[in-house]
């Protein structure tokens, strides 16, 4: 695919007249792993939901792999995997049943094998038949990640994916993200865990007051990054 995974120009999103996204210009190419940093309320979650076509932008344009995202075509949504603050998994179904349900929605080929592979990756094989209601926060987060990866999306949008994960699971996710980016998948993730992502990011951006206030290509030294973050956020506060 030659078109950028994401091409956003002047993206705005208001809630009740309050601009949460003021004007976001963003291009993400296939193979890029963009890490979004920013204080609480900066608009990271809203931006990821707009990119996932879950929220309509109030203004500006958004293309996903060259397709106008405002059309929300099934083909565009099939290219996207999204993990939000909540798991989007049914508490009264088991982990496996949740993955089977989403595999049906995405028409995943060889769904049984794919589900088994993801249950193995997420370390949920033993708990696969238990209802999600009894899962711990970390297990639910791992299941949500497995759900988002199920259909092999070209664009992965992850909102604080490391939250709730134990160190081993976080390490596995970090390795997987680097591997997916190397394989040509585009990834945008928001996090507060600067140290965890600084090494694997191909680009780091700071979202502040609804727009990209700072951006840097390549991995970054966490100390330098923390200093930049402080300068941008505190300097503008």
């Amino acid at each position, binding site marked *: 695919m030659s078109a950028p995974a994401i091409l956003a120009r002047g993206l705005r999103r208001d809630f009740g007249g309050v601009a949460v996204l003021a004007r976001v210009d963003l291009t993400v190419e296939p193979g890029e792993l963009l890490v979004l940093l920013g204080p609480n309320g900066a608009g990271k979650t809203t931006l990821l*939901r707009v990119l*996932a*076509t*879950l*929220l*309509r932008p109030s203004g500006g344009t958004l293309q996903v792999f060259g397709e106008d995202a405002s059309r929300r075509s*099934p*083909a565009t*949504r*099939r290219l*996207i995997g*999204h993990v*939000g*603050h*909540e*798991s*989007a*998994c*049914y*508490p*009264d*179904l088991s982990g496996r*049943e949740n993955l089977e*349900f*989403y595999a*049906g*929605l*995405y*028409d995943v080929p060889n769904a049984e094998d794919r589900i088994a592979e993801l249950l193995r990756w997420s370390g949920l094989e033993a708990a696969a038949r238990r*209802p*999600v209601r009894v899962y711990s926060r970390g297990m*639910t987060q791992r299941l949500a990640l497995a*759900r988002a990866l199920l259909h092999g999306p070209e664009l992965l949008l992850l909102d604080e994916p490391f939250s709730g994960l134990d160190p081993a699971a976080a390490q596995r996710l970090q390795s997987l993200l680097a591997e997916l980016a190397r394989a040509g998948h585009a990834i945008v993730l928001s996090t507060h865990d600067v140290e965890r992502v600084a090494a694997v990011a191909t680009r780091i951006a700071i979202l502040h007051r609804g727009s990209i206030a700072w951006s840097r290509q390549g991995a970054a030294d966490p100390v330098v990054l923390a200093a930049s973050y402080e300068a941008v956020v505190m300097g503008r506060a």
Partner: protein
Amino acid sequence: MWRGVLTVLEKDLRIEWRTKESLASFVVLGVLLVVIFSVAIDPSPQDAPRLAPAVLWAAFVFTGLLGIQRGFVLERENDCLGGLLASPLDPAVLYLGKLAANVVLLAVMQALVLPLVAVLLHAEMARVLPALIVVLLLGNLGFAALATLFAAMTVRARAREVMLPVLLLPLLVPVLIGGVKATEAALRGGFGAAVGALGVLVAFDAIFVVAGVLLFEQVIRD
């Protein structure tokens, strides 16, 4: 398209089978309403064709409102609705899947309430049962078509328990009148007597299902 409908239907029925939350409220409220009506009215067998339709439809509407709302509340937990809307599933297919699940649950409730009404209100139903089943299923479809759309509309609202009946009941009037008239006609004379009223129900079903398919995306998306 039908695969998507079946996937959503199967998921909803599996959750309901496991939790029995809608069915429990159907049974308790449905039985309670029918018993209260029968005790209050204590009709003779001659009065049954006139009174049974009102009792049946009052029980369907009040229990149905509870169950249909529950179908969307479960989508709010863990933002499952977000997962559905982010998927390639056409919102119209999601609507039809939810509608199918609601029709099945309402049909189960009707199957439980119907014999109870026959016994407690002394209504002679065995002779006209096929006509009665057709009337009830058509009424069920019309009710569920509109209620599914409005339950989706109010699912994000804070006072949804109040808003759903307030918005829905006035629009349900044609289906309720059609349903009550058709049930009464069926009880009096079977299919032959109910043909005219059935036509009205079929027309409303068609209008409400088409409206639901066309409008669902607008009401469910942010």
